């Protein structure tokens, strides 16, 4: 079995307002593994993801990417971030750039590629997310599902070692969810290492190698995706039934 890509030890995050959002979380992500994080709203899932690439500064604990510590002032954080892809709930495409330029921006500015090289690589990933036909469109003229696929392409183009998804389908209309999930599933099948925060329980069950259930800032239950069908803890049971009620 291949090595650990992400290693998270005793992670704590106290926001400046005093909210203790993450209270000592530890988990590892192995090469090629896809981990799903589930949990109710406000349980600290996004906080964990944003700590991993240090969009926010964790107040305690350690995070390692392939053995290299992420959360010290001494790391080259820009380099580390370019190796960790992130897909946001609300896409966050660069509204003033066309689809193709959204994807090439990081390649040109961070990877210092020539325009031609960058475009070649961008076209390759855009093909993977099935967006080749809209490369000259501005994000404002795309549907939600298309936007999220472009966002995935933007992260993917950097050839990240791990991809973080923060509720990639929550902002989408139900009929658009499918195409995005299909794209993510394809990536998982290709062996992409990823951490997916999601409310799509069935997706977590089918795609994830491992599921982490978070509640009130701690890991309440973790295990293979089968725990979704056979939850051990009361809390997870309750959570799953509340979700099933909704659907």
């Amino acid at each position: 079995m291949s090595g650990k890509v992400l290693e998270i030890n005793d992670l704590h995050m106290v926001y400046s307002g005093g909210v203790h959002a993450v209270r000592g979380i530890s988990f590892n992500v192995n090469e090629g593994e896809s981990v799903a994080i589930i949990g109710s709203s406000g349980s600290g899932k996004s906080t964990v993801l944003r700590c991993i690439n240090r969009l926010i500064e964790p107040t305690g604990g350690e995070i390692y990417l392939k053995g290299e510590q992420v959360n010290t002032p001494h790391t080259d954080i820009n380099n580390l971030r370019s190796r960790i892809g992130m897909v946001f709930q609300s896409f966050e495409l660069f509204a003033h750039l066309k689809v193709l330029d959204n994807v090439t921006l990081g390649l040109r500015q961070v990877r210092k590629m020539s325009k031609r090289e960058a475009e070649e690589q961008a076209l390759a990933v855009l093909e993977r997310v099935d967006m080749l036909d809209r490369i000259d469109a501005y994000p404002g003229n795309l549907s939600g599902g298309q936007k999220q696929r472009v966002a995935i392409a933007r992260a993917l183009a950097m050839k990240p070692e791990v991809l973080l998804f923060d509720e990639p389908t929550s902002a989408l209309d139900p009929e658009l969810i499918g195409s995005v999930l299909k794209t993510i599933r394809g990536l998982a099948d290709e062996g992409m290492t990823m951490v997916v925060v999601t409310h799509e329980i069935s997706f977590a069950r089918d795609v994830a190698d491992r599921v982490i259930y978070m509640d009130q800032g701690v890991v309440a239950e973790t295990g293979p995706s089968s725990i979704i069908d056979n939850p051990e803890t009361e809390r997870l049971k309750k959570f799953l039934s509340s979700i099933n009620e909704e659907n």
Partner: protein
Amino acid sequence: MHEAESGLPKAAEGQGVARVVAITAVILLVAGSTPGQASGFTSGWEVVESGTSEDLLTAANFGGQVWAFGTGGVILNSIDNGISWENTDSPTTSDIRYSDSDFGSLIISGDSGLVLLKSGVDAEWTDISLPGDSQVNGISLTGGQSAIAVGNNGTIWELEEGEWTEISLSIESDLLGVSFIDENLGIVVGSDGTILFSDDGGENWEYREAPEGASDSNIVSVEFYSSTRIYAITDDGSILISMSNVVTGTDVGYVWTLVEFERHYPPGTNEYILGPENLDVELTSVEVVSTSKLLMTGAGGYLSMSINGGTIVSQQINPLGNETSFNGIVMVTGFTGIAIGDGGSILWTDNAGADDQVGFVVPEYGNFGVFVDETKEMFLSGFIATLKIVAFGIVLGFFLGVTLAMCKTSPTSLRYIVERYEPRNVRIVGIPILGAGIFQIYSAIPGTTDLGLQGIEYIFLPVGAPESFLRILLGIALTFVGLLFLSNDGEFAKIRIKSISLNPWRVRPLNTIATVYTDFFRNTPLIVQFLFIHFGVRLGALIQGPGLDIFSFENLEGNHNFLTDIFARYDYSESNYGTLVGGVLYDSAFISAICALGFNSGAYQCETIRGAIQAIPSAQMEAGRSIGLTYLQTMRRVIMPQAIRICIPPMGNEMVNLVLNSSLAMIIGYAELTRQGKLIVASTFQYAYAWGMVLISYFVVTWTLALFLRWMEEKTRIPGLGMTGGN
């Protein structure tokens, strides 16, 4: 909010064409009419008959009459303010060179020690000559019967009760001029930059330092005009000035400066030599008419006038031609007076000698066509001058605005700056910073007491001189940073004092500096900023000097191009080879105007741009950072391109404001549109036409700008983003 009119509807396109036509028509109207009538100058001096052909060397006002003296002992007298002259009996045949009248007496001196005194208009001349070998170079009365005369090798003679005593000073220099304002205060000047001062009627003399640049010059004449001002001239064409200073409590005569010439006008023209080092003439005499109005004579028929203490000097037309040199001017009133010269020449004026500007025909300005013909060149030059400061001001303001907005929104706190370094190293760096801070405060403290200020009226100078004040502020800032660094233990903890807790590590220095800047410029009147920048800091001159050193004719000769022409353009034609004729560095008022406009506009633009930056969702920054862009890269590639689009409409307001504000540049003497309008009114008295044209000109500029910005807005709009009210 977008402007209601952003996104021009299609139907407006026809209107757009009409607008272009209208603008073009106005421009053609202004530029294309036929050339105006030439105009010229006539001399303000009239030649009057003196009845002698002796060289006239000195003149004086005495007892309601005007007196002129010259070679061969000639003494002329005029009882009608210098129009008609009578040759009076002279008790001498020696040349009379110097004269002074005061305290009801008239004293003259000349060759071979000649000194004559007249203690009343009807009194006879009394001969009080010095020994025959004395060479007198100047004389001044210190009382009805007392006087001081000066001569070569530092000799000073004092006349008291009919007796001369020689005061010998251990000075080698020749003394060339003397002037007393009352019984006590007097000044003597001489060769090698000698300046002597007496406050006891000439008994004792103190050496005063000549300004740098005049320490080798021969100071040939001096006039102690008032208790606040003394003027002196040198034979190499410089003017020295000494003023009392109320703020520092310095009396007149202590501090001497060389007048920096801004412009020197050759006779009979409106074209001037910019910023000459000297007047390029051997000056022979100076007559101070009022605190800041001077008349000067010089070799080669030089006659000139300045109405601002010498900074702008206009040479006057000499109706006798350049062969006749003038030796002195004496004014009976502020406007009536005479100039005397070689060969018995006397010129008379009743308008202070100023040349009269005359048109060959008096145009009928009431006719609009004639008015436009006559004034279009001035309008056009003002229009172009305004366009120039506006263009440079916009560029400078935008650049500053973006920089300041970036500073204000930057998250760079002190903690952020130091946290990547070992605490120990940070502490080590803290030591010199603390040292520098304490040194600044310590060395500025003497300055705070220097002035000995007391009382509530000095509330605006709480710590004395402005420089000390600034240094103390800097010192406090450095001390704060130094102490903070020294206390660094890698924890970056808050400081708690009772219930108040604050974290000094969260101070954002860039933000602080930018905030101070914008608050200052937005909370003071622009007109005062103009005055302070141009006259207080002299920023224009400060930039112009070193700027012209770099873009000097020597450096540019042979390799000038359009870029260097922006800074300094020289004339390469035969006749004026090497004269500076244009470019930003041509005129210090131009530089100051750009700076004042740009600095001010930058402060406002900063707030506009900052507002736009804050309107961009912070997640855009996170998205940029998450693909590995640095903070600055994200700002440049992601945030700014979106923010600038948002702020085009409010930016349009800023730019229109800048155009309108540019009219304030007239206060510092920059020849922009409003100032030209004022000058045109002064010469045509067509208030409605002139100001109307000025208004229309401004409108054309701002309107074009507004159209351009609307076009920009349209051009840069991101498809699918924002409400546009159109397509």
